[in-house]
Every structure is written in structure tokens, then in C-alpha cells.
């Protein structure tokens, strides 16, 4: 009968071997065969466990994310790195996140996950209120995650919701119109590796051809590489009806805040690239999605 204390094939092999295989050569020979069986058994166990977010090796993380409809960012799950706690929790809460697809929580957490393990401040600024709650004078609603505020709490069944603030008409005045299906995403670049724009349109930092900056977004090449990823996430996680005219990367977090002064908020002409206020803003503008 197998020794109940045997936990490996090596132990079991020795326990099961007849006396004539218990000598110095026999033991070594059987050990050689058994160690391979142990390796194979480990392999099978690892293979079965590798699709669990809490167990996955780094190069399995993108596959898990893909299965769960989640995108991986540039600073996570690359070969040789380890899966971050944020990514693991994101994968574990995939169904809870998808339940929130199309609402501000799902959209902002998807945008934020691009920067994992960093947790930048992000905002979703909505014309009106997508939840139907009346805003003062039909103004704007601000959904925000503060810098380093957690997305998920240990043991919590749901993601942490963003803070919500409502402002009156004119507080957020992009182009003079208020259309409830429009929202703007703002990423505050406090702790993420993004180069601030070196050139903006118009004087005094005029854009010049082939100077390393990008025509039309007032940003740098690094900003440009960021845009497709954020746009893809926005398209996937926004409500189908939602229109996001622009994604903004803000390099001065005193700008574009619910409590910012009017000088640091859109003035009704920000949709125009020649707007003087927009030219002066420490903000990179990316075309949005619909």
C-alpha cells in the first residue's frame, strides 16, 4: 500500500520499489525516472493554474486580460516583469467591471488601467448628467479619481466608484453648446511618464515642421503613441451613445478641475485650435471617439 506520507513520485517510487531496487544504484535509477514524473505533474498543475490571475506567470497576464475583455498597458505584464496587484484585481473583478461598461466607473477605470501600476488622477466631464440626476442649470457632471486613489479595495466585491461633483451651466463651456451625450476624458499627468508639450500652436511657442512635435495635438511623439491606446479603451468602455470629442492630457493639475478658476477651464472656444485660451493651456488634445 502506498505510504500516505509520500507526496512526490520520488518518495512513492522508493516506497514501492522492491528490495533489489533499494540499493545505491537501484535507488538512483528509480529516482531518475521519478523526478521526471514529478516535473510532469508540476507542469500539469501549473498549466491548470496559470489562467488564474492570482497564480499567473507574467507572460500569461495578457492572455487572461484578452479573455476577460481587458486591455493591458505598456508597464504591466511584459516579459520579465511581474503582474501588479492592480492588474490582478482588475482581472479578478472583470465581470464587476463589465457590469459597469458604458458608465463613468467602467470608462475611467479602463483609462486608468493603461497606466498601471501608476494611478494618475483622471476625470470624466459630462455635459449634463448621464445618470439623469438634474445638474444645476443643466451644467456639467465631474467624475474623478484622485491621484493614487485606489481602484479596488482588498476583499471588496465592487470597484471603488469615482467621486461626483456637479457644476452649473457655463462652468464647463467647450464650444457654447450643452449636449448630454458628450463627455471629455482628462488624464492628469502628475505621476505618469508623459512629456509635456514642447510646442503649442501660435505664439510664442509656435509649431514648426519636423521639430519633433505633432501637428494638431499640441503634444509630443510620446503623447501621440498614447492616443491610440486611450482611444481604443474609450471606444470599448463608453456607452454606445456617448460621444467623446477629445481626450485631454493635462500637465498642470490646477487646470481642468471642478474648482478651477474660469481662466483654467474651457471658455466656449476650446474646440477651436486657434482659441487663445486653448493655446495657453498646459494640455495635450487628442481627437476623441464616437
Amino acid at each position, binding site marked *: 500500500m502506498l505510504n500516505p506520507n509520500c507526496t512526490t513520485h520520488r518518495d512513492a517510487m522508493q516506497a514501492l520499489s522492491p528490495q533489489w531496487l533499494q540499493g545505491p544504484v537501484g535507488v538512483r535509477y528509480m529516482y531518475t525516472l521519478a523526478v521526471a514524473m514529478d516535473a510532469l505533474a*508540476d507542469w500539469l498543475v501549473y498549466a491548470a493554474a496559470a*489562467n488564474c490571475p492570482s497564480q499567473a506567470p507574467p507572460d500569461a497576464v495578457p492572455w487572461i486580460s484578452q479573455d476577460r475583455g481587458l486591455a493591458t498597458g505598456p508597464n504591466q505584464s511584459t516579459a520579465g516583469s511581474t503582474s501588479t496587484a492592480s492588474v490582478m484585481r482588475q482581472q479578478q473583478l472583470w465581470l464587476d467591471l463589465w457590469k459597469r461598461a*458604458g458608465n463613468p466607473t467602467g470608462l475611467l477605470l479602463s483609462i486608468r488601467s493603461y497606466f498601471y501600476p501608476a494611478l494618475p488622477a483622471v476625470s470624466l466631464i459630462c455635459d449634463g448628467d448621464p445618470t439623469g440626476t438634474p445638474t444645476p442649470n443643466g451644467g456639467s457632471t465631474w467624475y474623478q479619481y484622485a491621484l493614487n486613489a485606489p481602484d479596488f479595495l482588498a476583499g471588496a466585491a465592487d470597484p471603488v466608484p469615482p467621486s461626483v461633483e456637479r457644476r452649473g451651466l457655463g462652468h464647463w463651456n467647450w464650444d457654447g453648446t450643452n449636449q448630454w451625450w458628450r463627455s471629455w476624458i482628462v488624464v492628469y499627468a502628475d505621476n505618469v511618464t508623459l512629456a509635456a508639450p514642447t510646442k503649442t500652436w501660435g505664439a510664442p511657442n509656435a509649431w514648426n515642421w519636423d521639430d519633433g512635435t505633432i501637428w494638431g495635438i499640441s503634444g509630443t511623439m510620446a503623447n501621440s503613441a498614447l492616443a491610440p491606446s486611450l482611444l481604443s479603451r474609450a471606444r470599448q468602455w463608453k456607452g454606445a451613445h456617448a460621444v467623446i470629442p477629445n481626450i485631454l492630457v493635462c500637465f498642470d493639475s490646477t487646470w481642468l478641475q471642478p474648482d478651477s478658476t474660469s481662466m483654467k477651464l474651457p471658455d466656449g472656444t476650446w474646440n477651436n485650435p486657434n482659441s487663445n485660451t486653448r493655446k495657453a493651456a498646459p494640455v495635450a488634445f487628442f481627437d476623441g471617439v464616437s
Partner: protein
Amino acid sequence: MPMPNLSDMVETNTTTDVVNLLLGIANNIGLSLSSWNPLGVGRAIVQSVATVYSMFTNTAAFLAQGAYAGYAAQMRNADGSDVTQWLDLRGVDQYNLYRNQPTYAACASTGFSVTTTGTAGGTFQIGQFHVASPSSGATYSNTAVVTFNANTTTPCAIQADVPGTSSNAAIGTITQLVTPIAGATCSNSAPLTGTNIETNAAYFNRCVLKLGSISPSGPSAAYDYVVQTYTQTDPNGVRPAPPWQLTGGAITRSFTRANATTGVVTTTAGNSTGTVSGGYSSITNVTSLGGNTYQITTSTPHNLAAGSQFVVTGCVGANGLNYAGTAATVWTVLAYVDANDFTVNVGAITVGAYTSGGTVYGGDLGLCNYLIQANAVGQGITATVQSIQSIAISPTCTVYYKKISGLLPGAIQAKVSTALQSYFASVPVGGVSDSTPDDSVCPYSGIVGAIMATDPSITSVVFSATQALYVVPPPLSGSPYYTQTDVSMLVSSQPVGVPVLGLTANISAVPK
């Protein structure tokens, strides 16, 4: 021991690898391998164990790879075809979603007929009367009992003997009687369309789209999932069956986006052959024509033909027309009157006098719209559906291939045509992006790549400088033009185009 990387777990070991591994271990723990007889018991047992071990590494590698639906979707057989078993397991167990099975190209009796002369053909039970398409070689059988009398044109419902698109038939191509009737001729007045089994890529894409349907807030994935899935009958019968079956094949491609100035959501849907027929419109009047026949008037063109199936919702007064979730309230267009009018026979249903409101959803496109309104559109959201627009691409090129392959130019041309059809069918609605999200093109490089991958004997493909790819109809300019660059998939500035193979006469193959 830390968990190894996935890339290591999906690698298999050959018997030789394992033999070397075992002998290395034996050597390390002090066994004297030099004393082992090459044909002795010791080495023989190691060889046997290594062989079994190597076989198990295949199992372990499959186990590791098959643990992810996305990875399982990439499994290929040695001939390049999809390994479907693993993804089928993942699809059902992980997403509760089944793979779309192939369907048979078929038509009702209104779409095919046999004309006899002096000789009667007799009566045929289901499946006993056979016809064929001389051009494709596909064969078809009758799906209802039919009797062919002398000197008569008799309608006959037929279905392909083999499922899939290989039995698709254009109008007027099923002209050969396999079951002989002296002096008789036959032809189809309707196209016959079947669908292939869903590919791994399409199936996995639908699995991920399903996640969008979890949310009550209606992300675009929910709309795309509904049009690609709810239009199909659930093989397990869990989901309510669609009111009627698609006639143009499964919706395999869709793209949902909002209008920037109105917020109205539009889902652009397409099937494997291109444009989706049918339509929907608001009802402005319902008029009794006497008996059980009514005329329905719509505010915009209904785009329905005689025989199209449709449902009505929200009709006030004539509420007997409204869909009640039963087959009895799925109607069939009796006759097309004009662009905004058609008639219907309601049988024994009491309709009532029309007061106001109502929407008619008919044909494949109407079915998509009806299902989206019922299953995806949130409160306060306005959504609609439109068909993709086919953009024919007719390559003018010379394909060079190795003479030693023994293939005739015609065989290469046929392979290239099939490969291009397959590639074009894989291009998403509105094309793909080369550098920015809204490029919306069918890339030239993709077309060349598809041709080059057609057969190992192909060595190059050359497009002439002035006659590379020409597009009919041109999406932007007013007349055909020639381009050797990406082909735009924009139609009226909207990314609703999908490439389809146009003329193939200008694809030549030259052995070298």
C-alpha cells in the same frame, strides 16, 4: 518552485529531449552511464519512459494553451485549419456561447422552378429530386414533396446537399437536372446563400463582445453582440428564438458608433456576402382592403419585397398587428405596392382600426433593428441599424509561381480568388487603421499578403504601375480610378464599407 512562464509551458519535449534530460539527471546523481549497454535494460526503460513522457508533454502544452480562450482561438492543425475543440469548450464553459454552425444554401419554392415539355416528371419525396450548378458543381435536393406534370413550370423548394458557402448560387446558375426528366429545364430566380462554420477568430470575438451585454449601460459591444448572436437560433433553446430566420446568412460583421451631433447610435451590420437586405420604418397608416388583407403605409421606404417577413411594434388602434412574441404575429409581405406601401394577409387575427404610431421591422436588417431595440438599447437612447456597403475590389495583377509545382495557371487563379474572398470577408466594417483610428482602409499590403499566402509555389505578385487595384464603384471620386495604395472603406465619409472581390478576369498566373 516558482511557476514557469507560459511560453515554457506550451513547449513540448521530444523523446530525444527527454532521454537527454533523464541521462543528465542520472549522471548528476552519480550513476555510471558509461557502464550502460546501449541495448541494455537500463537504457531501454529510459527510452520507454521518455517516449511516454514526451507524449504527456503534448497534453500538458495543450492544457496550458487551452486554458485561455484567446490562445485556444489561435490553435492550428498541421494544414493550417482551426483547431476548434478547445475554443468550443472555452466558449461554452467560459462565456456560455456556442459556435455558429454552417448553414445550407436554400430557397423557397418561389426561388426555383422546373419547366417540363411533353413528358411528366412524376412525384418526388423530400430529398429525391436533385439538381446542380454546372459552374460550381454544387448539388441541391428538394425540401418538399413535388410533382412535375407535363408542359408545366413547377416551383420547387431546394437546399444544398453540402452546408457552407461552397454551395452558394447566384440567380440563374442552377440549371442542370441531375434527376433526369426528358425535355425539362430548370433555373433559380433567387440567390441561394449558405454560411460556413464560424471561424475561431469570429467566435472568440463574439465571446468577448458578450461581456458588453452584461452592462445595463449599453456599450457598443452589447449592440454588436446582439446583431451577431440574437439573430441566430440558440442551439440549446435557452435564448428566445428570433421571430424569423435570416435569409441572407449570419451577421458576421458589425460596427456601432454614435453620431457626434445627435448622439443617435447606429449599428452597421453585414453578412459574409455583403449588403444586408430589409428595412424598418414608422407606420403612418393601416388600411383594410377587405377580407383579411391590409395595406401598411410607412413614412420612409420600407425596403421590403413580397415574401419578406416582418413584425410590428407600438401600433395604436390596429394593435392586432403588434408582435406578441408568437409565430402567429410574425407577418409576411403579401405584395409590394410602392416604396412606402405593402400589403399583408393577417388571417384570422382581428387587427382593429389604426389610430397612430407603430414601427415595422422586416427582412434581415429589420430583424437586426428589432432585436437591438429589444435587447441592447437603453432608456432614453435612440438607436438604428444600417447595412454595410460593399466596395468591389478588382485586382489587376500577375501572380508568378514555380513551374515545378505542376499547378496550372487556372488552379492558381482559382486559389487566389478564394483567398481574396476569404481575406476580404475578414476585414472589419469600415476597414482597418494603418496609423490612426479612423483611417478606414482595406490595406494594399493586406491584399498582397493574402495573395502571397495563397500557395507555397507563389513567388511574387506584380501590380502594374497604372492598373493596380481599381475600385468599382469608387468611394470618393465620380469615376473608376486606379490606385496602388490602400483602398478607402469610407462611403459618404462614413466608415461603412467592406471589401468584396469584384472582377477576377484581370488576375493572371504565370509559371516560372
